[in-house]
């Protein structure tokens, strides 16, 4: 579904991504692993149209993404749960969720989607009238994921969801990720938390300093000596 070919990207005159290629097929849960500064978030920003690529091609279901604006890409079917959640702080939880259903095709099913999100995250129903800025990190993460679900899109980009969250909540969130993947949503998961990620993903790419250094089935990478040494010893969980 999503294909990135030979991507170069710059962030303020500094090159951060070199000749990156990856793809995610329908129904897959693909992980992108890398430490801070490896270029993971930059890659996601390029995919969603927040940052223009310097070179390379990005396609989604055959449509070229290169010069599209973020809202056009959302309307094509890609939703992102951004780094730091980015919920709208002075809007209520409910309003945030409603914003998630902004694309025209999502609006018709707004009520159905809302109920579904409340099933997955009962906490959000309780807090529906609360301002999103006053939620805890974990609650905001749930809201951000719920928002993406409201869009009825089939492809999700999940950016560093475990950042700053306690282990139990992380567990919770990842269970939800597995669940929505099972229901047919293709996912590109960007993470620093390697052990959990490799356990739930189908395949994984390892990104270092803007280049893909390894790419394989997740299970295989779990047992890979390089990965073990570089990544599995460094994170908790």
């Amino acid at each position, binding site marked *: 579904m999503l294909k990135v070919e030979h991507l170069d990207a710059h962030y303020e005159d500094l090159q951060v991504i070199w000749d990156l290629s990856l793809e995610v097929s329908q129904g897959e849960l693909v992980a992108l692993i890398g430490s801070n500064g490896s270029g993971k978030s930059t890659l996601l920003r390029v995919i*969603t*149209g*927040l940052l223009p690529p310097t070179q390379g091609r990005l396609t989604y279901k055959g449509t070229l993404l290169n010069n599209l*604006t*973020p*809202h056009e890409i*959302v*309307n094509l079917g890609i*939703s*992102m749960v*951004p780094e730091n959640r*980015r*919920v*709208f*702080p*002075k*809007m209520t939880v409910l*309003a945030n969720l*409603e*914003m*998630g259903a*902004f*694309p025209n095709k*999502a*609006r018709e099913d707004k009520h159905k989607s809302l109920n579904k999100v409340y099933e997955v995250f009962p906490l959000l129903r309780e807090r529906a009238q609360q*301002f999103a*800025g006053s939620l805890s990190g974990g609650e905001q993460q749930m809201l951000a994921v719920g*928002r993406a679900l409201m*869009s009825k899109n089939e492809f999700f980009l999940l950016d560093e969801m475990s950042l700053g969250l306690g282990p139990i909540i992380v567990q919770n969130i990842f269970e939800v990720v597995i669940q929505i993947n099972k229901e047919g949503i293709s996912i590109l998961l960007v993470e620093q938390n390697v052990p959990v990620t490799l356990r739930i993903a189908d395949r994984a790419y390892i990104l270092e300093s803007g280049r893909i250094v390894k790419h394989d089935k997740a299970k295989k990478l779990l047992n890979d000596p390089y990965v073990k040494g570089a990544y599995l010893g460094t994170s908790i969980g």
Partner: protein
Amino acid sequence: MLQTLTYGILNGLLYSIIALGISLVFGVMSYLNIAHGSLIILGSYGSLYLFYFGLDPFISIPILMVSLFLVGIILFKLLYSRFVSLVEGLKIQKSLLVSFGLMLVIEHGATMIWTSDEKSISPFYSGMSFEVFSGFRVPLIGLAGGFLAIIVIIALHLFFSRTYFGKSVIAVSQDPEAASLMGVNVKRAFLISFGLSVCLGAIPSVLIGLQAFSPSVGIEWFNKGIIVVMLGGLGNIYGVFPAGLFLGIVEAISVFFFGAPYREITGLVIFVLVLIVFPNGLFGSIPE
């Protein structure tokens, strides 16, 4: 005294509507449009022309709204859209400067076309007032203006809370990137918000037109508007209404005690004092 208060309230509502336009643009895209007052005065001239053709000023409001909306959109595309992606500090400064230039162009252009003579629209109901009880009269025009202001408040509230586009504007004002990730066309939201802000000026256009106006008066009205915006809290759209009423009433009371010449000065002094005590305005940032 009641009379004074009423004048104060009606004036205050007028200030609020002007401030609303300024605040909308500032809240959504961090632009300061100094030319807002001058654009309103342009509308007043428009209303004057329509009046010569026999159209009652209040009836001309919808026409003015549409025209000003279009003017706003054109101005945005021509001028203001070029620096929409800058950092907030630079955005404020650039928009300030550009609108400053625009204000001068409008003001002096208007002077060349229409001279600096003070003009006024005088329909048959100009001086009329409505007697509630002995000694207490409410001017008809003021009353109509007050009603319009209240309608605008309600309409805007519904717009922001009930329509998807309105909600998207609020989302954009809080986090444009996140809004675009929800599928909001942020550029278009900016464009329409700007147009909307100028369009809101149609009501003050008419109300001021019915009082008295001249090209140089635009910046004075902007000054009133920005004072109200700052009193209400920069970026807080709903704050302009209590702030506007506050200013209107304070001014009216000062007229009552000190006489007309000191109206402006008192208002401005109170403004400075309030800001010293409450640097973020009387109402800070209330969640919308």
